[in-house]
């Protein structure tokens, strides 16, 4: 592998031929081709994504001083265009193009690679959207000529719904949701929940808090408003004493996070754990079951699908169903496609409220390499 790929000896022809097959399939399913610019305003990625994406995004300054970025994905520019243009929803968009990513600590991995993918924006029936994209991803890999690949799935909505069902203050629920995918950390959060928050030494009334703020001098000109500070201080003061989680429930969550294995067995185990904890997540479990049935309809048995409860979001914006396809090239296992639901993205980009959104992208160079290794 090299950081700076050089395509020769028919490599581009092979990639283009494969892309034509994929784009043909997407078009047949009603997906319209889009081609966002390679150079984008840096703020588009840096303000909307976490520092993890920023770390992997190439940024530059143009001669006039404007901050630009080489697109690290096509999803964000496509969503922004849909918001800006007021595109009629649901919208189906497909693409094939280069993305650019710095690979921290791995100087020999390619800094650019091709992705072909689809985005399904604004389809209210989320189960139908999940199924449409999962089916299309499988069909795309098969159209590209792959027969053997494995599938790993997860669901951020499941954990979020679980946390929402707990009797906890909103900021603690937010904290658990943000961090659930980080092994170890959620367990320590659960521990704190059992032992209270020792650091809250704030006054308890609005008057006292406002007096404390006024004693600090001028307000900073940017950032959080005075009301945001007051509201959070009041919340914290109120929570300091009351914060407790039933150890049985905390245990059930920790065990649930640990689940990883064939999806049919995982589903049964989750159902049992939720019963123990006295939490009803039937709609989420039904959604998971429906996805497995969809995959079974494509000839992928639930026992062949790996479900990992803490499988989340290395792109930091997924909100629900997530999936990865894996295969082997000459050097070992590689991820050849991935995607998921990202229902908060359109709102982050300026839409008036949350918009249902799900997509997937194929790593087309890897797909070719896997075929070459077979």
């Amino acid at each position: 592998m090299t950081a700076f790929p050089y395509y020769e000896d028919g490599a581009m022809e092979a990639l283009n031929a494969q892309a034509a097959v994929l784009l043909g399939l997407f078009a047949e399913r009603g997906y319209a081709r889009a081609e966002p610019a390679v150079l984008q305003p840096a703020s588009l990625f840096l303000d909307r994504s976490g520092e993890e994406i920023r770390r992997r995004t190439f940024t530059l300054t143009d001669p006039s001083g404007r901050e630009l970025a080489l697109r690290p994905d096509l999803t964000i520019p496509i969503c922004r265009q849909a918001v800006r243009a007021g595109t009629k929803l649901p919208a189906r968009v497909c693409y094939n193009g280069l993305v650019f990513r710095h690979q921290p600590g791995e100087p020999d991995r390619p800094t650019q690679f091709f992705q072909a993918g689809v985005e399904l924006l604004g389809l209210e029936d989320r189960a139908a959207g999940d199924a449409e994209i999962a089916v299309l991803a499988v069909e795309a890999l098969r159209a590209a000529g792959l027969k053997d690949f494995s599938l790993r799935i997860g669901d951020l909505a499941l954990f979020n719904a679980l946390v929402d069902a707990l009797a906890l203050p909103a900021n603690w629920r937010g904290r658990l949701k943000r961090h659930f995918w980080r092994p170890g950390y959620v367990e320590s959060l659960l521990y704190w929940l059992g032992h209270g928050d020792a650091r809250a030494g704030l006054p308890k009334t609005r008057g006292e808090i406002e007096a404390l703020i006024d004693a600090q001098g001028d307000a900073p000109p940017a950032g959080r408003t005075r009301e945001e500070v007051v509201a959070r201080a009041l919340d914290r003061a109120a929570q300091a004493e009351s914060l407790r989680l039933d150890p049985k429930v905390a245990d059930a969550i920790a065990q649930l996070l640990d689940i990883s294995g064939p999806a049919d067995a995982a589903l049964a185990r989750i159902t049992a754990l939720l019963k123990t904890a006295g939490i009803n997540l039937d709609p989420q479990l039904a959604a998971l079951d429906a996805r497995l049935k969809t995959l079974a309809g494509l000839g992928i048995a639930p026992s062949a699908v790996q479900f990992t409860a803490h499988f989340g979001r290395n792109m930091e914006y997924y909100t629900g169903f997530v999936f990865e396809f894996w295969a082997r090239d000459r050097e070992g296992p590689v991820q050849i496609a991935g995607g998921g639901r990202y229902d908060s993205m359109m709102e982050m980009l300026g839409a008036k409220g949350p918009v249902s959104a799900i997509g997937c992208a194929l790593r087309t160079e890897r797909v070719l390499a896997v075929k070459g290794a077979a």
Partner: protein
Amino acid sequence: MLTLAIPSKGRLKENCHAWFADRGVTMEQTAGARGYRASFTGFPGIEVMLLSASEIAAALLAGDIHLGITGEDLLREEAPELEGRMSLVQPLGFGFADVVVAVSNYWVDVAAMADLDDVCAAYAARHRRRLRVATKYAQLTRQFFAQSRISDYRIVPSAGATEAAPAAGTAEVIVDITTTGATLRDNGLKVLEDGVILKSQAQLAASLTAEWDGEARAACRALLDRLGCDYPRLAALLPG
């Protein structure tokens, strides 16, 4: 020839001279080198270069020099993973500074990194923008914020006077060095309880990527022995 770089100006330079002199090593300026070259009396195999503190960190990382004295903060910022690239040979007992996370006193509800996590996430969700962290230490900040499980923020590179960024409205949080905390206090800022990223001081550091031939090793051993530093420990890390 062994090359060793020491800071070319300021208190770090003076402290370095004193530290060597205390151990019986005196420095002579090389004639005609405009004050950028020097040598140690009695150590003909060592060339001393006077560079800026941040150039020394970069030169160690690049393997352009064998040994260098600079702040640990700069070394760790230049090379977040020191292993295999640099070795800290000896802390020198001067140039003390803490790299810390600080926010406005106005944020009465924020005392620890966990609070900052809450606030960053709530702000991003509410305003569709990230809170900004002004710093010269982008690498250290990323690493520490990742350890603290904070992702909803954005680093704003700072060229100087980082402590003024919150009052100027160009950032809400800063990561900067402090010795007494007076500058931060004067700017209405407070350090978070668990917001000390690094307790830094001047370090004698060795590059593990430089060309360590027999001559350089011999000169290094002679110097470190005189200075009372542990050469065998360094020798075990050197390549080849």
